[in-house]
């Protein structure tokens, strides 16, 4: 399971982070300002959110915007790479399910 380094004990001594909230498939999730949306999810131990045509689950794979595994619909726009998109307070994320969309 993925996890974030607690800022209080991080040896690189970050300032106290500022929180934000996003909604993922209707559920409100807390994140930190400056996180990517993928970063918000991974910090909560969520490593998979997309479903492929074959019904397999995907999350982050390449982490730098090359593989498109982590895409989701953000504020109504489909196919956004969550590893590249900074979370903004109030962002609405809907996961994509290609088995549903194929019908």
């Amino acid at each position: 399971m993925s996890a974030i380094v607690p800022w209080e004990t991080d040896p690189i001594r970050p300032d106290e982070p500022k929180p934000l909230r996003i909604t993922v498939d209707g559920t409100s999730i807390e994140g930190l300002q400056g996180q990517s949306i993928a970063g918000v999810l991974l910090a909560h131990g969520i490593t998979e959110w997309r479903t492929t045509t074959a019904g397999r689950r995907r999350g982050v794979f390449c982490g730098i915007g090359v593989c498109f595994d982590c895409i989701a619909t953000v504020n109504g726009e489909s196919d956004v790479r969550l590893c590249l998109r900074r979370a903004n307070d109030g962002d609405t994320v809907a996961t994509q399910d290609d088995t549903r969309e194929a019908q």
Partner: protein
Amino acid sequence: MNADVVVIGAGIVGAACARALARTGLSVVVVDRGAPASATSARGEGNLLVSDKAPGPELDLAMLAADHWPHLAASLADELGPGFPDIEYDRKGGVVVATTEEGAEPLRAFANGQAAAGVEVAHLTPGEARSLEPHLNPAITAAVHYPQDAQLQPVVATEALLASARRAGVRVLAHQEVVGLVRDGERITGVRTASETIGTSAVVVAAGPWSGEVAAVLGADLPVRPRRGMVLVTARMAQRVFHKVYDGDYFGATQSADADLQTSSVVESTPGGTVLIGSSRQQIGFDDRLRVNVLAEVAGRALRLFPFLAGTPVIRAYGGFRPYVPDHLPVVGEDPRHPGLWYATGHEGAGIGLAGVTGDLLCAQLTGADPAIDPAPFQPSRPSLAAHLTGGAA
């Protein structure tokens, strides 16, 4: 190496010719300077259309093809078995719409003319069009449904024809460029490639937009020129486009000789879940550089049909060269000035759909069998082509 017939070009038209010839018992070699199924045949949408053709010989050929493809698709699937990729033949029908008041009446008149020529045509009210295509722009002014229009995956179809041809004994030589003919007086006795000479008395040029260049290498002239077309591919999405949907401007684009950029929109879903958006036509030689203004025009026209596509990501743009002939008819037959030299080319954007019947028509002429359609309008000796031939036709 010897063969009864050498076919130059391993695209869909060359494949169909080779297959038809081999199935009559002739020995056939296909030569391509590149890889099979990788040039024009791999760079279009896979259109099998009757809807875009005005009454006349090309429509007759397209109607024959529309009847022929279901049988051809089934027989290829049967012959090659379930291990072969699906050619995705789908008689999904076309919906042609007018997006302007001025465009409505010409579309209806065009469709009526086609109906008189035997095309299945259904005039639709905007409401009926929206029941066929719920996401269509409600602002359309006229719509016509063409149930005979179909789609297939052109590369798989080409490979299937080639695989079937191989089973009938055809040899396919890839990455071998033809550099000339061998003659004995007027008579053709062979084809020289960069690496060998293939003894033959009959040569079929099926090199698509490169057919003019190939003819020149063989000492003949043929007014086939490249016209570039661009297609956009979107990310996968839930299916929201159900037919081949295009605007009536398409007619203007295909039937004009204007070299300037022409675009019209053709929008359709594929079994892979993507949407294909075509297309442009531009005479710029074999220049394959990306032109952003062309993509922008194609995109803008598609949005007039389906406004919902505005938020859809385009993941790929590809372009291909279509074989353009000044009188807008395929060239299928023997060159009267060069006995033994045959052509099967010049289909512009219709080569995928017309390939099967072109192969049969070429084969019937070459073997002296009864053709299924009058070959005269397609022969190189036709009057409408004479003005474009240097030295004049026979």
